[in-house]
Structures are given as C-alpha cells and as structure tokens.
C-alpha cells in the first residue's frame, strides 16, 4: 500500500469486498480497480497486495484458478463461502470503526 499507513489495516477488507462483487479477479486487475475507484488516491503495491492475497488463500478465504491469457499464465482469485462470511464481518467492523472515528474527529457529522 503506497500512500497511507491508515489504509494498511483495511487491505484484506478491500480485497474481499472487490472479489465479493465480481466473479474472479487477478492481482494486477485488483490494483487497477482500486486505483480507478479511488481516482488514483490509493495505490496498492505488489509487495502489499500479493502477500495479502496469498494469506487469504492460505486461510481458505480465496480460491485460485489459473488460465492461459496472452501467452502467459494468469492466476485468478475467487472468494470462497468462508471468504464471503469474512468479508461481511470485516465490512461491518470497518463501518463501525469509521463511525467511531467520525464521532471522534468530527462529532457534527456523526450519525448519533
């Protein structure tokens, strides 16, 4: 993750969320999707993305499919059933974290 340490803890949540919304994605596609969605604000580096993907794969939250594309092999990641559960769990945790931070840094904008 390039531009902020604040994003670091949310990387797996971002990956799971993106994969939950699509059938399958490969590493480079994930970096480009994040760049596009955040209008270039957030750039995920290879050194952060792939270890996170491999950890999620090792934990059984992602499944892998390898296909030959443009003369090379491409590793696609798909979310598993456990990954979907973990994704919704992490997203609700993140939402609660954002709400707490909102209440702390900008009480006027907070919901409660």
């Amino acid at each position: 993750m390039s531009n902020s340490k604040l994003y670091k803890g949310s990387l797996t949540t971002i990956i799971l969320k993106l994969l939950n919304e699509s059938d399958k994605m490969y590493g480079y596609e994930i970096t480009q999707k994040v760049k596009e969605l955040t209008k270039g604000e957030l750039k995920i580096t290879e050194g952060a993305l792939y270890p996170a993907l491999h950890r999620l794969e090792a934990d059984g939250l992602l499944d892998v499919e390898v296909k030959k594309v443009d003369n090379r092999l491409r590793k696609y990641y798909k979310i598993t059933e456990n990954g979907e559960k973990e994704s919704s769990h992490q997203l609700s945790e993140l939402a609660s974290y954002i709400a707490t931070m909102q209440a702390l840094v900008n009480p006027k904008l907070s919901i409660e």
Partner: protein
Amino acid sequence: MEKLSKEELQFIDNYLDNSDIIYADIRMEIIDHVASEIENRMQANNEATFYTIFKTYMVENKADLLKDNKKYIKSIENKNTKFIIKELLSFKALIVFVLLLFLSNNYLLNFKIMSPKHIFTIPFLLIIITTIIYFISSKIYKYSRFSGVERLGFLYYVLFQVFYFISMFIRNRIEDLNNVLVSALFALCITLIYVFVKVTITVIKTYRTQYKSIV
C-alpha cells in the same frame, strides 16, 4: 492494446529466475503482473520500448517483488504446517495409528519378525526413499519447482529429526522398555509418514489441477 511477445515474456521469466524467484508458481504470477504493467505503460507511451520500460519498472519495484517472494514462501510453510496438523488430528490418522499399534505389537515384535532395536530402520528408509524420488524428479527430469511441494521438504527434515530422536531414545533404553511402548512409538512414526505422504499427494494434485498447462 499491444501484448508482449513470447520472447519478451521469456526475458522477464529468466530475469526473475536469476533474481532467486525460483518457484514456477510464484514467478508466473509476478510475470503476469509485470507484463500487464509494461503493456499499460507501452500503450500510454508509444515511443517507449519494452526494455526501457522493463528497466524502469524493475528499478522502482524489484525490492517489493523480492519481498513478496519471501512472504509467499512463509505463508506456504504455514499453510503446509496447518494442513499436516489437521490431518494428524483426523479420525483416519487415529485409525491408522491404532491399527499399526495392534499390528506391530502382535506381529512385528511378538513374533520376532523384527527386533525393537531395528524396527526404527523402517521410518528412516521411507524418508530416504521419498528424498530420492524428489531428487530424481527435480534434478534429472527437471520438473518445474512449485513452492507448496518443495517447502514440504523443510517439514520432512523436521520429521527426520523426530525419528532420529525417537530412535536414540529407544536404543539407549531398549532393555527397560516394554513392547507396547516400542510399538506405540513405531505406530506414531508410520502414522506421521502416512500423514506426510497424504498431504504431499494432495498438494501435488492441487498443483496439477491448478497449473495443468505447465506441469
């Protein structure tokens, strides 16, 4: 968008291989990432050649790629260890252990087929056979090296040390130990080998399914 040629992809492959990214499964993913980025940059700048973009990219990102390589190997080792522990604690492993305990206690030792002193040659022999098979596959047939399979080697080494320790323990106390304890230790060794071989076969099968185009 212009795609990289086979020669250009081979160039990236050789470069990464020479940079100590030795496992085919890790290299393949990095090649795709690097190639995708180079193709994007080539599209954005028609003047730039493959080699100049590649050089710039590696100056910016090589350290990150090598870091990823190390972390991947670590996560693979953790995955393998978890898999072995899960299999070792399974009901099937328990059945194998009980069956082996019965067989070794009633036949191998009681009928003097093997003496307690020599019974532990069997696990050592099985480990040596497995190692020879690995070396023939990788050095003579030059099969692609896959991280998940090869990192199991470290766990096999730990297993070898466990057998060595058990063997030493038995040898020094051979007169004091009863056959049931010797049989239990023997059954444990063979059950461990059963679990290791089962995990190895499963890991190889997974790779064969996932990477069938390059295996």
